[in-house]
């Protein structure tokens, strides 16, 4: 069995971990930097080439597609799917999860609880919402990640000034209901039909974002039935057999985000679980069951 691992040119912790574990499970594992890949096709055949080597001859594909390769990554996965190569995520999930609002639409349509969220191209369209919404509100960049691009406004005035900035940078205006929480979120790692690892991230003092990249600290967390159910349904709604689902805790629980390119360091360190191994085993299972 041959595995093609697709990812950014610079391999970091997560890519290295996956490579290491994959080598224990697959006979051959090759890492392909997305940026160097070329798609070639005509009526008869389709190839994804790396220095003349065709990736579509591999038995399975494990993609790690960051936002910066979203469109090209999506295209590659569409072609791989057409050739029936096993992949643990749907090509569409790459587009859906990097776009925070598209994620929420998919979740809402699958009846997964999410915070009330609004999006428009212009601030003026959202003005009436600002009058009736409870503060603080959360404003987000449609394509932000790692806590970057998540902002909080405690009043209408500060919301407006953030929106003006978004509009000036030609960004759509994204406003979300603030879900009261003790500065924590839950990162639930789903593989197949299972919640394999779960951590609680605590924001650092004076910070509302719980992201580890924003100074948050992760610790092992025993997910309850409700959280498990939400995480599994969210992953399924997006067509993902590998997904990291962010949930805001509280009396009522909300899914705020699903990640297609999650880091493994935080979750492996916090839980001591070999998540990389479980991902690779899932891909192996998909490859051998066709």
């Amino acid at each position, binding site marked *: 069995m041959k595995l093609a691992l697709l990812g950014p040119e610079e391999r970091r912790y997560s890519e290295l971990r996956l490579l290491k574990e994959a080598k224990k499970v697959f006979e051959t594992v090759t890492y392909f930097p997305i940026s160097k890949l070329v*798609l070639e096709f005509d009526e008869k055949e389709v190839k994804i080439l790396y220095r003349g080597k065709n990736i579509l001859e591999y038995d399975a594909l494990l993609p790690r597609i960051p936002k910066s390769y979203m469109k090209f990554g999506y295209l590659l996965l569409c072609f791989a799917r057409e050739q029936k190569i096993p992949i643990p995520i749907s090509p569409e999930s790459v587009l859906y999860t990097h776009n925070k*609002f598209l994620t929420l639409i998919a979740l809402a349509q699958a009846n997964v609880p999410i915070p009330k969220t609004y999006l428009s191209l212009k601030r003026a369209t959202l003005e009436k919402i600002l009058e009736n919404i409870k503060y603080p509100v959360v404003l987000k960049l449609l394509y932000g990640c790692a806590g970057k691009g998540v902002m909080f406004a405690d009043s209408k005035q500060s919301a407006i000034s953030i929106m003006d900035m978004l509009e000036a940078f030609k960004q759509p205006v994204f406003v979300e209901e603030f879900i009261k929480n003790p500065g924590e979120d839950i990162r639930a790692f789903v593989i197949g039909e299972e919640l394999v690892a779960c951590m609680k991230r605590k924001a650092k003092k004076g910070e509302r974002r719980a992201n580890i990249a924003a100074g948050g600290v992760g610790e092992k967390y025993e997910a309850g039935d409700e959280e498990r159910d939400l995480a599994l349904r969210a992953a399924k709604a997006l067509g993902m057999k590998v997904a990291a689902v962010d949930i805001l805790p509280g009396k009522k629980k909300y899914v705020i985000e699903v990640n297609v390119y999650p880091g493994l360091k935080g979750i492996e360190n916090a839980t001591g679980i070999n998540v990389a191994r479980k991902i690779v085993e899932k891909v192996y299972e998909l490859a051998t069951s066709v």
Partner: protein
Amino acid sequence: MKVGIIYFSKRGREEAERICNAVKEEGEECFPIDAKTILLYAGEDDAAAFSQENGLRSFDSLVFLPEEEYFEFAYMIIKIVYDYTVTSIPCEKFRLFFNRALIQRFLASHKLSVRKVYAFSEATAANFVLKELKLPVILQFPDGRRIPIKSEDTFTELISGIKRDTVITAEKPLKPEFLVWTLVIGDEVIACEKKGESISPFNTPSEIIEKSLKVSSLLSTFFCQVNFIPYRNSFLVNEVRLFPDFALFEKITGKNVYKILASSIISKAKERKKEMIKRSISQSINGIKRWLLEIGIIGPRREKI
């Protein structure tokens, strides 16, 4: 019947207004909708889209005049409304547009021939393509720009300046003596021929009519523009546009394009609405919930937007 025409630019507004006037002349209600007035909502009780307090799902039909810059936003609108309102293009087909590699492959898989296409997104990969294809090549960008490349220097310069994650396709250029553009509206195919800078009406051979109709039906779209290129005694589909240059076709051929468009929109909307009612009855609980959301009993309009 209530029809909405959603536009994203100045040209879009002009065309939307012309289409609206034609639809009104057929005796139906029609409104141009500026995408900038559209508010999208997602919440526990489903997603919804509004323009100036009107739920977009309350329209019987929504026609999109999309542009590359606002592709994602248009996609989100369609995703929200398309199970409940007849849209001029279905969600999964819309995804193929502004993506030359995807659409060309889609056509090829339905036996519409294509030539060899390469797609890449970074300079390092571009050099490989150049070695395979050899100069000259023609590059195409997602916004439809097409740039012929004759020297390695211009190639390198162009490629090094591209924005990240721009998918570029490369092909061998053809030097056709003329091009054929068709406007497909329902079963009607209106054709122009472009020779050098001059554009004239074209006496359409049956091959072009058949291929135009096939493209439009494969993509399940109300209308589209198909650009053909003559190649080896036949015509290749070189491009499909969701927002055709209606005004140009009308000017060149003298046909009443907007009238044809209006009656086609109305009949397509009626036909698809029937299929949809069948579907929504089978999903009735969600259907009722969505209706409550549209009229503001639950969801964001309860909060008086």
